[in-house]
């Protein structure tokens, strides 16, 4: 039996918080050049704490003139590099955490709202719409930034919102979130977007096509702190609304009639949750591309461990989601280096696309959990 002891849920959740915190703290030290730059060095350099030259003796890449001691110039160079590494890696870790939390929470929410265990944050067509928007932006060569937001991200966000709106228009007759019409409309719009994406790809040149393929694989690259922070106004409402709706979502599980009789305004709950989740997931897709599997695998894994009481399931999913995506990001950074070392060749890319990693790591984990439940 894989289920945790309910009396220890608080302990386990606390453990998840600690793990996530530790991962965030040590993440600046993980990646290329970690032999020279430990996570504590990176933090000390970033926080302006004193680093003595003799601590650095023997580290590769530091003693450039190879005289066995670390000079003032080399120390200054080390501190400068450590700061750069922090600026490069820490916002990326925070972004991975934000994205993991958002996809996991919205995955839980959509599975409950649609009463469908196969629903994902992308069921309404957010990923396809966002991708189509991004591909069109790449084809048109939109590179300008508006208020610090890249036009690529804006186009992807707009595409996602337009497609979700279209899905709701198409399914308008049915009025019910759990109806097959809505899911079918989502699938149909997804197929339509795929066809349009192929069309856009065909009329693009090679360089653009490459950019499109890379975008579709998802990426946490090229992120500044401000870009991650800009996503928070779209993500936080989803986190807050879902958490305070946890008890209402529990009632919703037992059917519309029972929930209504217990005092849950079902239509308002559905509308509210779908709205905030759509905005949050569209923000994720706009910034990072369609990162798959997190929104499906994490909620199911969390439910297998913690049961399906939303008051526990939602925070557990959020913590596991954040942890999962940070770990996947580490794998994506280290895998290519390891692959290059193992095969003795220079591989084409410095990092493995995050979407590939979430699938490679997520699917086996999910299969193991699923098999454990069958036993």
């Amino acid at each position: 039996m894989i289920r945790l002891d309910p009396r220890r849920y608080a302990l386990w959740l606390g453990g998840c918080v600690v793990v996530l915190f530790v991962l965030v703290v040590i993440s600046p030290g993980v990646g290329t050049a970690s032999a020279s730059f430990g996570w504590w060095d990176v933090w000390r350099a970033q926080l302006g704490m004193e680093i003595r030259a003799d601590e650095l003796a023997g580290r590769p890449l530091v003693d450039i003139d190879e005289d066995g001691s670390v000079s003032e110039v080399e120390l200054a160079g080390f501190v400068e590099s450590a700061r750069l590494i922090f600026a490069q890696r820490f916002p990326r870790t925070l972004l991975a955490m934000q994205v993991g939390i958002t996809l996991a929470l919205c995955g839980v929410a959509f599975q409950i709202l649609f009463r469908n265990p196969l629903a994902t944050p992308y069921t309404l067509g957010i990923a396809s719409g966002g991708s189509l928007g991004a591909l069109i932006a790449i084809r048109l060569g939109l590179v300008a930034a508006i208020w610090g937001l890249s036009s690529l991200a804006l186009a992807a966000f707009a595409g996602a919102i337009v497609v979700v709106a279209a899905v709701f228009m198409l399914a308008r007759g049915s009025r019910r979130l759990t109806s097959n019409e809505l899911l079918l409309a989502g699938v149909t719009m997804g197929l339509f977007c795929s066809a349009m994406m192929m069309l856009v790809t065909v009329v693009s040149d090679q360089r653009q096509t490459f950019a499109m393929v890379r975008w579709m694989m998802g990426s946490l690259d090229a992120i500044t702190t401000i870009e991650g922070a800009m996503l928070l106004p779209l993500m936080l409402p989803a986190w807050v609304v879902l958490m305070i709706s946890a008890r209402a979502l529990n009632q919703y599980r037992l059917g519309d009639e029972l929930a209504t009789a217990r005092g849950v305004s079902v239509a308002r709950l559905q509308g509210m949750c779908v709205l905030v989740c759509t905005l949050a997931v569209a923000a994720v897709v706009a910034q990072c591309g369609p990162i798959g599997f997190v929104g499906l695998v994490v909620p199911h894994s969390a439910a297998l461990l913690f049961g399906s009481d939303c008051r526990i399931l939602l925070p557990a999913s959020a913590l596991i989601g954040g942890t999962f995506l940070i770990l996947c990001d580490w794998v994506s950074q280290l895998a290519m280096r390891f692959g290059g070392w193992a095969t003795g060749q220079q591989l084409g890319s410095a990092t493995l696309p995050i979407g590939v990693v979430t699938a490679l790591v997520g699917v086996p984990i999910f299969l193991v959990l699923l098999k454990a439940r069958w036993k």
Partner: protein
Amino acid sequence: MPPDPPAMLTLEDVRFGFPERPDFLGPVAVTVQRGECWAVVGPNGAGKSTLLKLMAGLHPPHVGEVRLGGGLIGKLSIRQRARQVAFVPQHVPVDVDMSVQDVVLMGRFPHRSLSLFESPEDREIARRAMEVTATSGLVKRSLATLSGGETQRVHIAAAITQQPELMLLDEPTASLDLQHQLAIFRILRDRAWYDGLAVVVVTHDVNLAARFCSHVLLLDEGQVASMGAPADVVTPDVLAPVYGVELATLGGADYRWIVPADDPSGGRR
């Protein structure tokens, strides 16, 4: 003499319909007092479930008024209403992986607005509700693993935990064995007798209704065919025309059972 307190539930010439059948139900006028246990019986499609949802305030009546303790039910917020009326629907999703304890405690929802978790008083109320429904032994089980009878008792325990003044149940004994049918009707009767709840239960079993309920309401094609004490309603003369079958009475002075009196060969002569 002091004036009588307002009845728990009053339906005044209530009519209701659907777009395809605008005159589906009504007019229905009925008054349910505290401590009464009402059974709503009638053929399939007679409007029993619809009447129950009107009583629960889940449908607003097209014509007429539904009053709860003297006030219009439509004027209450749905949370205020939920503090007074518990409703157990006929179909509740069964594949919910939550513990029985949590499902029963969910009945406290309308009473607690801000806190995320239940208080010791809530747990005490739930414990008593599980005691009277004989579900105490199931607390740790997952709802998804229960039998039909156990599931139904758990939902009734949750409804009792809601501490309503009016409890409405839609076919709680459907597809249950004899033992569980009796157990559930006993629970409902006892809540009406000892706790002074007003109970309305939709059922197909006229004999159980006659044995356990204080009042029976017979619906036929959306109209009240008869209502009153079981002895007056649950008789072959009243039921036979509504159900369209010949009926006979078995038993003696203590218990009378209504049974079909059709040709035992089923017409294969």
